[in-house]
């Protein structure tokens, strides 16, 4: 499972942004199409945050919808998962344009 690697990456980003200040909340934006299992990430975060400025921080996740450009409809549509067809026309000629992000959006510091 690589969520531990993701959590280690996450805590590095948090530590670099927070410096010496205590972190209350870490707000993440995670797309519906992102390659991450959320509860695994939460579990891993609880492990890696120990002994850091974020050791009591809550993890707040904002889900972003999956988005793709449909080459048939010529517009951006919402998709739930990779491999889904266009919700409008059913075509699989889709180019994912959003929803695969895993981003640290902001921190709330003490």
């Amino acid at each position, binding site marked *: 499972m690589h969520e*531990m690697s993701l959590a280690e990456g996450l805590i*590095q980003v948090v530590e670099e*942004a927070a410096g010496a200040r205590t972190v209350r909340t870490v707000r993440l934006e995670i797309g519906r199409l992102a390659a991450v*299992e*959320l509860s695994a990430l939460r579990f891993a975060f609880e492990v890696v945050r120990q002994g850091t400025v974020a050791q009591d921080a809550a993890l707040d*996740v904002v889900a972003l919808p999956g988005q793709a450009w449909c080459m048939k409809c010529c517009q951006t549509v919402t998709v739930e998962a*990779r491999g889904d067809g266009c919700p409008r026309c059913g075509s699989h000629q889709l180019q994912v344009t959003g929803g695969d992000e895993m981003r*640290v959006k902001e921190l709330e510091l003490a």
Partner: protein
Amino acid sequence: MCTTCGCGPGEVTVEGHAHDHDHGHHHAHGHAHGHAHDHGHEHDHDHDHEHGAHGDLHYGHGAAHSHAPGMSPPGRPKGESRSAQREGDPMSPPGRPKGESPSAQREGSPMSQEKMVAVERGILDKNDRFARANRRWLAERGVLALNFVSSPGSGKTSLLVETIRRLQGELPLAVIEGDQQTSNDAERIRATGARAIQINTGKGCHLDASMVEHALAHLAPADDSVLFIENVGNLVCPAAFDLGEAAKVVVLSVTEGEDKPLKYPDMFAAAQLMLLNKVDLLPYLDFDVAKAIDCARRVNPAIEVLQVSATRGQGMDGWLDWVRAAAGRARAERAARRAEAARKLALLEEHIATLR
């Protein structure tokens, strides 16, 4: 959640029934990726890995903190079941875990503005930085790097061995091998006469860009050469980790199911080329080639497909031509970079001359 096998209460269903798991196993987390040095190959050894013979890199021997999945995480009273913390929809906001300070914010309530720090950085930011540095390092030297991904047993190593046999003498080649343990694959590559370095990830399930950076420093691929990176056999995790390669090549063998691309969409979406391997076995199987290609195109309309048999030779000429063309592009990019650098240098010298 069990970080050994990834299951947790309510998350895994078998035939529609949730299954629980007796967590009696312990395992150590070996992978320390704390590379504080800046990228530049005055490479300081922070020793989270060891070097074996041939410079092989072994991770998982560092200051591992042993982790027993049955133990409650700190802050939560022992004995409380993990299911008390689970959420229904993975995307729904968290309840407040026990033990957390009462001043922590719940989802939905506004955070105090003056205490907010915008970050806007990807979780994999550190890996991506290493990857970008690797990509630049490779481009400066005209090295074509390909990241081979697949499930275990698809024939990646055999394919590389055969590819090296056929390309040797024509193109300089080097290989980075990734496995949890053993140097077996690197030994097979070395037996062809090509240089190889083995990365053992220990408990890790994928190669990452910092591992590749170390390997590049030791392997030192020649200018205008081809570098094959054989990733850990795993159709899930490597998809998320950019190594700095020019392209991911996903190897699917005909002894697997045609719907693999639908089951593991992230990997097939991330790949530029799918090699359908072991086609010599098609007469003995019910494998539907057209369906496999269709499934791949559903998750990645732009994916290229080549059918090959590494052991019997079918399709290998087409595959080698693909490699040659990609290597040609890498060399051309290097030449363009050098020409651009020379042009800038000439401009600077001209400018300096006017200042005198």
